[in-house]
């Protein structure tokens, strides 16, 4: 059984979209015959089969984007006389990672996470990581290196211009065999080594429904533990970051490097807004089919603040201050594995109803990945609502090239002192991170105080 993996198409490329299967499960394929097509940025590539045999399993369907080295299919090299459907069950135990339950349902888990480091190296046509030595290599040398799993970087070339020749490889192989009496098994026999481990570990861990991971307690130590085997349970797991994760990482670090971050925190009495919200909540739900949250009130109050102190709505480009005539407010939306900041355009022209509707629409489409590129561009100020996850105060990172971001904490009923009496009020903290290159502390606090004032003295009766 040969695993077919998503090849690495270049240094900066960490994932690819499987666009088309050129063969179906059960089809016979020849080695090097085009098997599937992948798409990376503006480039479509045909990927040849790493082995001859029967395509026994297709694990990644068309249209799915997966990380490099993810197993996308399996090829059964044993001729494929048996019907394709029967293959996986029969062949599975031999390639089961140690410690994994042997029920087929779990074994066939196709989640990329479970597959990353299982199986033989990727086809030699698309080497995953091993950089080849510079200089041309003959097909014979390539094939020998592949068959004997030789790292060509460790072989000294004696041919013209330092080229590695067949003789160099033969010498290298002979030296290796002298060094280790047991001959290194060629890749094909690696599977045969696995079975002895199965009885040992099958008895120890109880059958689990989930693949082994950090969530499950470590299994009891196995007496006389066998030496680590290929495909055994590793202590760590390597997963390439998704493109989105990489972009978030770059963006966050770039912002930290660019801006002189300072965060100021103001306490806001939200009792008036809370009453307003309570009064309209039920109507709002029945009239518009969505719940009324605190966020549109905060956006509305922010607009008031930005109108009064428009420098907070500017951005910095080098030594130039860009003043924006529009107020476009980015709202950070948490996704399953990341975040995105869609923009409520001309937020100053919307009332609470319009804002709530925009926020719900953008958040819903962000989570189903249906946002258009222009809907996440052109923001002039950002708001992040960590209060929705229970946080009271946080120090947000500025969304470049903007100069400030407002963090919204959770609204909580709190005892406060009013006129020397203790009262129960709905209290929230607003955390403003600002870029001290452009915004001074006094201005930042004036702005935040203005937002606070708009919320505490909420005067609009119309939503």
């Amino acid at each position: 059984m040969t695993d077919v993996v998503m090849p690495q198409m270049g240094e900066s490329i960490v994932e690819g979209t499987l666009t088309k299967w050129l063969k179906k499960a059960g089809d016979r394929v020849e080695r090097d015959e085009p098997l599937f097509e992948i798409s990376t940025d503006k480039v479509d590539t045909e990927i040849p089969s790493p082995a001859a045999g029967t395509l026994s399993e297709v694990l990644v369907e068309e249209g799915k984007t997966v990380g490099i080295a993810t197993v996308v299919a399996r090829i059964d090299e044993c001729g494929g006389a048996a019907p394709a459907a029967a293959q996986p069950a029969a062949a599975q135990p031999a390639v089961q990672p140690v410690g994994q339950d042997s029920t087929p349902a779990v074994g066939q888990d196709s989640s990329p996470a479970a597959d990353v480091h299982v199986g033989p190296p990727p086809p030699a046509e698309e080497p995953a990581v091993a950089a080849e030595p510079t200089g041309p290599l003959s097909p014979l040398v390539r094939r020998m290196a592949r068959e004997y799993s030789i790292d060509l970087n460790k072989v000294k070339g004696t041919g013209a211009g330092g080229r590695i020749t067949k003789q160099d490889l033969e010498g290298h192989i002979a030296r290796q065999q002298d060094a280790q009496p047991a001959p290194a098994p060629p890749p094909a026999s690696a599977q045969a080594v696995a079975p002895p481990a199965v009885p040992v570990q099958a008895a120890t861990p109880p059958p689990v429904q989930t693949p082994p991971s950090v969530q499950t307690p470590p299994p009891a130590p196995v007496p006389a533990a066998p030496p680590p085997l290929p495909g055994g349970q590793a202590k760590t797991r390597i997963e390439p970051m998704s493109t989105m994760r990489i972009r978030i990482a770059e963006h966050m670090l770039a912002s930290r490097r660019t801006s002189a971050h300072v965060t100021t925190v103001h306490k806001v009495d939200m009792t008036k807004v809370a009453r307003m919200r309570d009064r309209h909540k039920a109507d709002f739900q029945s009239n518009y089919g969505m719940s009324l949250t605190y966020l549109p009130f905060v956006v509305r109050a922010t607009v008031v603040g930005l109108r009064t102190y428009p420098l907070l709505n500017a951005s910095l480009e080098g030594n130039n201050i860009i003043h924006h005539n529009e107020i476009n407010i980015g709202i950070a939306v948490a996704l399953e594995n990341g975040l995105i900041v869609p923009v409520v355009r001309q937020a100053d022209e919307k009332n609470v109803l319009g804002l709530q509707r925009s926020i719900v629409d953008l958040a819903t489409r962000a989570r189903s990945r249906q946002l258009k590129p222009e809907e996440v561009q052109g923001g002039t100020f950002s708001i992040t609502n960590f209060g929705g996850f229970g946080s009271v105060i946080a120090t947000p990172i500025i969304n470049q090239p903007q100069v400030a971001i407002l963090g919204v904490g959770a609204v909580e009923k709190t005892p406060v002192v009013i006129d020397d009496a203790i009262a129960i009020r709905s209290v929230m903290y607003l955390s403003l991170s600002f870029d001290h290159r452009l915004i001074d502390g006094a201005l930042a606090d004036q702005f935040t105080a203005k937002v606070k004032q708009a919320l505490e003295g909420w005067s609009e009766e119309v939503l």
Partner: protein
Amino acid sequence: MLKCEVQEPGRVEYASAFELQQQLVARRKAGAIPDQFILLEHPHTITLGRNGHLENLLAGHDALSSAGIAFHPTDRGGDITYHGPGQIVGYPILDLREWQRDVGAYVRAIEQTMIDTLADFGIQAGRIPKCTGVWVGGSKIGAIGVHISRWVTSHGFALNVSTDLRYFQYIVPCGISKPVTSMAQLGCDASWAAVAERLAAHFGRVFEREMIPAGVLACS
């Protein structure tokens, strides 16, 4: 230095050019010819990449044919684009195993070829992160779409020299609703041939290839 043959077959129908590319790819894979760099022009044509979205075609097929525009779905990467007179279409047939096995680096190098060419004509062009292509300000001047089989490239790029940009109104170019521009629109009156000459020169420099005229190769 490895050699790369330059061909300029003139104005070629999309289907004929596609066939020419396929022949060259097969011969390149077999090692029968060195790398190739084809520079040509297409008549009015709209092409859709393998992962293209037909909704980015804004006109119906009737409207296209009455405007004299051919439509071809094709196997390159990227979304939808327009080709036509006044545009230089470049089709490098390269074996990336002899350069870098890196499709990202390849696309960046193609962009660099166009950027350096535009600089020769006084146009400062650049990249926009995650919007592959070549941009002047916020407008796209050079588009890219590539197909790779066994590390041999086909399809390539399109650079607007004096393209009639009104034809782009039929599509959302590359699925990105950003404007397109041309060298002519930016006030540069360079000829097709002069730009093609610089493209070939910069291609040779960027990819470290000696650019030589093509041998006898029939264009079907």
